[in-house]
């Protein structure tokens, strides 16, 4: 056993446990069958004028109680690891129990879970057991950031109930997002553009989609610095997680001040990878629930 560096320490533990148990047994036999200290005395001692101890025998049921407990304990220590490095007759370990539970889980649930992998998303979305499982998965794993209602949190985490998906809305893209996570970076532009131009671009971006937009001074700046990620018409780029700017959905706020702040100081968005926490079936359930 890895936690027992030498036989000496194992022997120490076994010795302590056995000596202790033997001591308990001797004590119990002494209590039931031994001579009592004040049996030879004419009278029991009296403390504090009227405090004394009776000499009633311990009840027999108590003898059987402690005997039964000790027999159980000795048997337990024979069957399970306890006495130093002795592994116990059952060769039980936390790890073996864990593996056994996994095997049982696989036997009972794997057929149903494998069937899910073959079921189309549209069908899954109609399956009440699958959808309630997905809702539970969302509540335990996603709701802390995206909210219990999946509508996100202002200025931090995207709303998942609208049509605007930063990294794409196809099942494959969402699967990728959940599995591997995403990192979005909007770099800070203040030092490059200066305050004046940041304001101009912000005004332009907020006007995007209206006919007057192209007449604004920010248009030229946008065309020079922003189109690489956000596209010429501001419709964004899902490969980079660059948001669409020509709609009215603003992750970090749509007011002039909010947009200026996003441009001046930049933004970073991080979706962690859930590959270690959720398996493919869990993720498939979540994708079906999100795209239902």
């Amino acid at each position, binding site marked *: *056993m890895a*936690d027992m560096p030498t036989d000496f320490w194992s022997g120490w*533990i076994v010795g302590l446990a056995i000596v*202790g148990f033997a*001591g*308990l047994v001797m*004590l*119990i036999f002494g*209590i039931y069958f031994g001579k*009592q*200290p*004040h049996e030879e005395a*004419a*009278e029991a*001692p*009296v*403390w*504090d*004028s*009227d*405090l*004394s*101890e*009776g*000499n*009633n*025998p*311990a*009840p027999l049921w*108590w003898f059987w*109680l*402690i005997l039964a*407990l000790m027999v*159980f*304990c000795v048997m*337990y*220590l024979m069957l*399970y*690891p*306890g*006495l130093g*490095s002795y592994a116990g007759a059952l060769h039980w*370990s*936390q790890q073996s129990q864990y593996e056994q539970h996994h095997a049982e889980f696989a036997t*009972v*649930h*794997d057929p*149903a*879970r494998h069937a899910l992998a073959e079921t189309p998303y549209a069908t899954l979305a109609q399956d009440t*057991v*699958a959808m*309630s*499982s997905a809702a*539970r998965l969302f*509540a*335990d794993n996603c709701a802390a950031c995206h909210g*219990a209602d999946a509508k996100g949190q202002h200025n931090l985490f995207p709303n998942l109930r609208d049509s605007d998906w930063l990294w794409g809305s196809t099942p494959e893209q969402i699967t990728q997002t959940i599995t591997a996570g995403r990192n979005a970076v909007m770099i800070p532009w203040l030092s490059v553009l200066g305050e004046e131009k940041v304001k101009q671009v912000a005004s332009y971006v907020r006007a995007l989609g209206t006919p007057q937009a192209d007449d604004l001074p920010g248009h030229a700046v946008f065309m020079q610095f922003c189109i690489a990620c956000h596209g010429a018409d501001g419709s964004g780029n899902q490969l980079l997680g660059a948001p669409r700017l020509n709609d009215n959905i603003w992750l970090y706020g749509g007011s002039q001040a909010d947009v200026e702040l996003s441009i001046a100081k930049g933004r970073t968005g991080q979706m962690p990878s859930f590959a270690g926490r959720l398996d493919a*079936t*869990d993720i498939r*359930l979540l994708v079906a629930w999100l795209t239902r």
Partner: protein
Amino acid sequence: MKGNGMLGEAEYYHDKVVMRLVQFSMLWAVLAMAVGLWLAAEFVWPTLDFGQFWLSFGRIRPVHTNGIIFGFGVSALMGTAFYSVQRTSHVPLFMPKLAWFCCYAWQVVVLLGGLSLLAGWTSTKEYAELEWPFDIAITVVWVAFAIVFFGTIATRRIRPIYISNWFYGALIIVIAMLHIVNNLEVPVTIDKSYSLYAGAQDAIVEWWYGHNAVGFLLTGGFLGMLYYFLPKHAGQPIWSYRLSVVSFWAFTYSYIWAGPHHLHYSAIPEWVQSLAMVMSLVLLAPSWATMVNGIMTVSKAWPKLKSDPALKFIVLSLAFYGLATFEGPMLAIRSVNAVSHFTDWTIGHVHSGALGWNAMVTYGTFYYLVPRLVGRELYSTRLANIHFVLALAGTLLYILAMWAAGISQGLLWLSVNTLGELSFSFREVMSSMKPYYALRLFAGAIFWSGTLMMTYNLWRTIKGANVLKVLIPPVPARWRINKSVAQPVGVEAQA
């Protein structure tokens, strides 16, 4: 002279320090239970911290536990130990000024310690949250406590040492050992230190401390209280000397192993878990031996039980002691623990011990002790009887609420649907707990109102009165240590 051979000067017990400790104990009971109520309310209305750090759950929870264990519990234990050790040794306290130091220094530690917890100082070890300056202060006071207690035993005039002193002695020695070993740490700043242990070792040391603080303070210490005050009040001898002996040694031996049952299915070695589980089971026997011993001791004084609230409290505390010491070993079993661990069942178990056993045995003892310290009748027996009903109802409702909550949590968390997915999210289970938490708050409020009532009752009892000076009675010749030593005059008198 009454044929008593040699007669010394009149000597009196030191009881003023006892009275002061009883007063502090009641003060902490009222305050720390109020903090507990606030915590219970935060479970129902989570915004009750009003965004204040010092009112947040994480800060006031240790204030509640430390206030109860060290404020209420230790003050009561010190006071009753000082009271009973003099009487069972037939001498005044050894170094009475040191006893006064214990009394006041301890209150300063509890008060400043509580404030430091509110300020966010914490070593993060459960029930040992106080930071290193307090750890040192506790050690100093504890050593002073030991000197007074064992000094009194060493200078005793009666040869046999009464059973209550064995338990108080075990309390002092074992808590000193646990406190020092668990708090070995490297100070960094005044409010921060790092433990000498790390990882699994740290966890084992912490729960060796944590569970034996329950064992030797909340159980052993209060058993000392029980073994003195129960027979004294019932006017009967302890039923069986043999059961006392077996319960003391089997209890002391088994308890010290049991701590790691708090760490089932964790990164600590399996043999540590198994031995802890096995020893926890064995503990059932000495615990029930004590319970039987106590109940049989009262059995010849049943009529007194009808009319005397103090005795009712002590007998009821024995029933809860029996319940909690049955539940504890069950929860220590691996497979039961797999369901119960991290649930409110643990909180219920702790409170069946803390409310049902510790608080009730202390209440019974104080109802007995305080009137005797001032030589008056209790101000109102009727109030004490109402308190008894409130304490019983509060404890029962509290335990029921937490059993229901805990077992539901354990089972709902483990529930799996046909797809092998968990049936319920953590949030769903959490929000379904609201009625249980509300019931717990209600139960706590009932229990606390009883404590307030008792404080008023005791305050009215002692108001304007002085602590009696009690003469030390002589020891029967047969049990006297060193017969040449002068014996005090054997009359109780009011001075």
